[in-house]
């Protein structure tokens, strides 16, 4: 089971992860990236490259399935305006054993951060907005998986 989706709607983590628990495996790992309640940020705007985004997520999921013995994977990324405390991205993996599920989950979010065409803009309470800068540490974590 592989599920990849770009979503304009709020992500329902519980509903999206439930199928992973029903695949007969012993391990489900998940990661949820949330619009952080920083300073006076009120919302995050997520821009993406529609012609490329879904294909890039499918490529990541395929790579995870090639590297680990997985029973299932879920990768959902929200776009548009996202209020603070709402999920931006959900990664879920299911495997027979925990090492595969945990490692594949970390791989998917680390590589999504450097390979998938999304850009975040922070909107603040005073009406100003600012593009978020990429972090060098994201490149470092993604390179770990090379």
């Amino acid at each position, binding site marked *: 089971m592989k599920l990849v989706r770009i979503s304009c709607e709020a992500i329902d983590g519980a509903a999206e992860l439930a199928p992973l628990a029903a695949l007969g495996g012993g391990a489900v790992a998940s990661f949820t990236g949330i619009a952080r309640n920083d300073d006076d940020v009120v919302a995050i705007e997520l821009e993406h490259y529609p012609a490329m985004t879904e294909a*890039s997520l499918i490529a990541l999921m395929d790579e995870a399935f090639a590297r680990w013995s997985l029973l299932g994977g879920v990768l959902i990324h929200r776009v548009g305006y996202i209020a603070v405390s709402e999920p931006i991205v959900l990664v879920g993996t299911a495997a027979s054993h925990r090492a595969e599920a945990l490692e594949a989950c970390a791989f998917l979010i680390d590589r999504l951060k450097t390979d998938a*065409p999304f*850009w975040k803009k922070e909107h603040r309470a005073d009406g100003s907005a600012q593009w978020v*800068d990429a972090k060098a540490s994201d490149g470092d974590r993604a390179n770990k998986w090379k």
Partner: protein
Amino acid sequence: MRLVYFARVREAVGLESEDRELPSDVQTVGDCVAWLAAQADNYASAFADPSRLRYALDQQLVWEETLLEGAGELAIFPPVTGG
């Protein structure tokens, strides 16, 4: 060639996308960016710092050195910040 821009680059160029005839000596992604930067100030400022630019050719991540080789769409954008 269809050119598409995203995020900070889109705002600096002032366009989401455009179609351009490229001169025949524009062979690589880097050539194309340098040629665009010479066309007008908005491009020059959008592309001023190549360390903050990333590229996709026909929706695949590529590098400055990558040959255009008849590709249909070049996307120019800042390092991605999703997730």
